[in-house]
């Protein structure tokens, strides 16, 4: 009897609290669709069904998502999702940027970080099916019409001549080595170019080729096989060049595009997953972004490999 009364009482209190929570229902705006992603209809169809709830201005919530407290969580996810990738406005960006975002989307799906696992736990039929994934991959594997002409070889030549002419002087004494730190304060480390090789990538998605280099601490961790939690002081550099076709079916290293650093310091960079993130573009090494928020791009793109200490590269040992 006492038990019965306890349960009924709990039920009533729950209803009262639940009802009271509905009073706080901040609006979820639906701004106009200004430039939907440019892609074939079959691709758009998949995106609409699987991604648009959070990544577009055409959010359609099922009734249970409209009930607080679930509504508060979903609303936050939608606002954050739109900020990172909004299929209703991305059509205004260059084609390469749109394709780049689709590659990132496919990767987050393949690695299981999208749709958000907590979203999928409630919306069980929201996941991308293997057939749909195959359709997206097939679209991206098909090369786009050659829109932009490849970077002229002369630009790479000028860059090279300038670079070799400025070398041969001690590091740090040249005015052009005074590179600005990133917006988040992460310093540029000019010694990156003397670090040892870890791996390389042929990035056919964005027509670049890359070398991944590591400092001594990174190399020691690789030699010791301790790569699940990289030691403080580890630094990786990822250097990217444009792919330059050699006219004989091969591809050579074209103009330098950028260098990115990941600096491990579990205390100093605790708020950014233990890593200091930076990217310097062009041969004048201009810090990427317009404020410290640029690092959200780094972190969200590396989120699928969170269980791998946010590192994508599988290192090739034996570089000591």
């Amino acid at each position, binding site marked *: 009897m006492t038990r019965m009364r306890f349960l009924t009482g709990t039920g009533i209190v729950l209803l009262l609290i639940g009802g009271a*929570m509905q009073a706080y229902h901040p609006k979820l705006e639906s701004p106009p669709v200004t430039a939907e992603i440019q892609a074939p209809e079959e691709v758009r169809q998949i995106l609409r069904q699987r991604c648009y709830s959070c990544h577009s201005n055409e959010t359609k919530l099922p009734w249970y998502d409209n009930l607080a407290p679930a509504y*508060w969580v979903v609303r936050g996810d939608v606002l954050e999702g739109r900020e990172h990738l909004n299929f209703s406005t991305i059509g205004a960006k260059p084609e390469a940027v749109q394709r780049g975002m689709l590659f990132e989307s496919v*990767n987050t799906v393949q*690695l299981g970080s999208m749709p958000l696992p907590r979203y999928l736990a409630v919306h069980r039929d929201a996941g991308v099916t293997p057939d749909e994934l195959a359709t997206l991959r097939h679209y991206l594997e098909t090369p786009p019409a050659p829109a932009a002409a490849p970077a002229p070889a002369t630009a790479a030549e000028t860059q*090279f001549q300038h670079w070799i002419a400025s070398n041969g002087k001690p590091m740090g004494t040249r005015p052009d080595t005074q590179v600005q730190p990133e917006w988040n304060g992460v310093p540029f480390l000019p010694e990156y*170019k003397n670090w040892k090789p870890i791996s390389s*990538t*042929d990035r056919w998605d964005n027509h670049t080729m890359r070398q991944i280099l590591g400092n001594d601490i990174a190399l020691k961790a690789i030699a010791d096989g301790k790569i699940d939690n990289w030691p403080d002081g580890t630094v990786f550099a990822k250097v990217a060049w444009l792919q330059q076709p050699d006219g004989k079916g091969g591809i050579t290293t074209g103009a330098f595009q950028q260098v990115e650093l990941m600096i491990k310091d579990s205390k100093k960079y605790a708020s950014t997953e233990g890593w200091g993130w930076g990217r310097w573009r062009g041969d004048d090494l201009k810090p990427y972004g317009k404020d410290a928020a640029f690092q959200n791009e780094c972190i969200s793109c590396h989120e699928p490999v969170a269980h791998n200490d946010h590192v*994508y590269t599988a290192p090739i*040992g034996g570089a000591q």
Partner: protein
Amino acid sequence: MKQLFAAISFVLLLSGCSPNPPKTVYPQLNREAEVHGGLSWNPRSGRVITSWINPGGTMTTLYGDDMAVNYARSHADGAYPAGAKLGAVTWKQQEDARWFGGRIPAQVASVEIVVAGGPYERYEGSPLAAVPGSDAERAQFLLQQRAAVMP
């Protein structure tokens, strides 16, 4: 009071259930791409000079010792000082399981070592073993590759 506590726990449970992303990526070395064999010099103990992608699905990185790298990064003529050591590792490619849109090294297809003013050596197989003979043209090709710009 008890009821209120139970209710609040229930609400917290509802809004706080957030499973972690599934573990699809584990810390792993790319073991199959390691360079094994009795080489006269391990090119990957040097520094990167440049890299290229060959027709037919292989990728090469050219490394050099200090003498070679310092020269390559300040000269365009490939006239390395005698004794400068260069090494090219060529890998078969595989799709990067962690990034659709990328290809990364798989098994080593060959290792070539050239010493300026000295011999050219080529290694193939697993473990790598020296392939007899020399190839002056190929040695010259390797010496003529310009360094990739690293400002």
